[in-house]
């Protein structure tokens, strides 16, 4: 599998560490780029040109939902998933309406790998 780049967006450094570890173990050679906010994610997107984006929802400043909306406007085919502790149905429905995935924390390795394989989370 060709090496890809994943943009990981979460205001929690620990959450980023845990998700990064899963990706690095199962996708050796891939590049993981991190952002701690929605604003930073949009800046990183321009430079890193990620193949996948994994987004927390509740973050200070621009939340994950708005960030997903803006990323999809820039790149409609970019695979984006939310990765959130907020398991409420309205959040799931908003993700569906935006055309982005919905993964819940703590992330399950198989679900994350499905997403990184191009499958629907």
């Amino acid at each position: 599998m060709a090496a890809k780049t994943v943009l990981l967006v979460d205001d929690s450094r620990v959450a980023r560490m845990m998700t990064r570890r899963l990706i690095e173990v199962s996708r050796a050679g891939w590049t993981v780029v991190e952002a701690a906010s929605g604003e930073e994610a949009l800046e990183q997107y321009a430079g890193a040109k990620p193949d996948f984006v994994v987004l927390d929802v509740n973050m200070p400043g621009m939340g994950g939902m708005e960030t997903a909306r803006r990323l999809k406007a820039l790149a409609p085919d970019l695979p984006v998933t939310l990765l959130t502790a907020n398991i409420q149905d309205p959040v799931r429905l908003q993700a569906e309406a935006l055309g982005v995935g919905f993964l819940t924390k703590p992330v399950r390795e198989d679900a994350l790998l499905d997403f990184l394989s191009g499958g629907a989370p």
Partner: protein
Amino acid sequence: MIDFVGDAERDAVTELLNIAIGQAAASLSQLVEDEVRLSVPFVDFLTPSQAVTRLEEETQGADSVAVRQHFEGHFYGDILLIFPERRSLDLVRHMLGDQVPLEQLTELEQEALLEVGNIILNACLGSLANQLGLPVEGSLPTYVRGRGARILNLGEAKGLPGHEEMVMFLHVDFALLTKDVNGYLAFVMDIVSARHFVEAVQAYVAEQMAG
């Protein structure tokens, strides 16, 4: 005098909480790869000082660490995940694995507990909201360390309707089966919010019974 929660309502609240806390326990279990044992949730109406005393008795007067999240919606209040201070680093170690050196573990302790709290509290709140069909908006979680009064922060509730009367204190104990880590999960709502919450539970039960 609390006269709006009869036995049937208390039973329904306990059952909904059982499900919500079960969801939270499943998340915690996955994070730390251990079975989580839960007590039966209990619902009490206490004055703020009684709530503080209750928590201090359970923590044996020692400092605790807590992650607190405020939530707003049809009902509102605070939800807290509370650990004895001496156990918090163990929990973080189980969560991040053995590869992380102790110095880094200590540095990351607060952030790791915030993330644990974020996952557990949202699992519980989200399950309640989904069951009742009433969305709740949670704030970003905050980290607190100290004794009961500081953890519960009930002083800040002064001025809210009902504060001078009582708070509804919903509480469950949990323990990791093999790792000697235990803690508490608590909801605190003032009486106005508690009344809205109980009404929502009554409506939910009536809907379920109607099939």
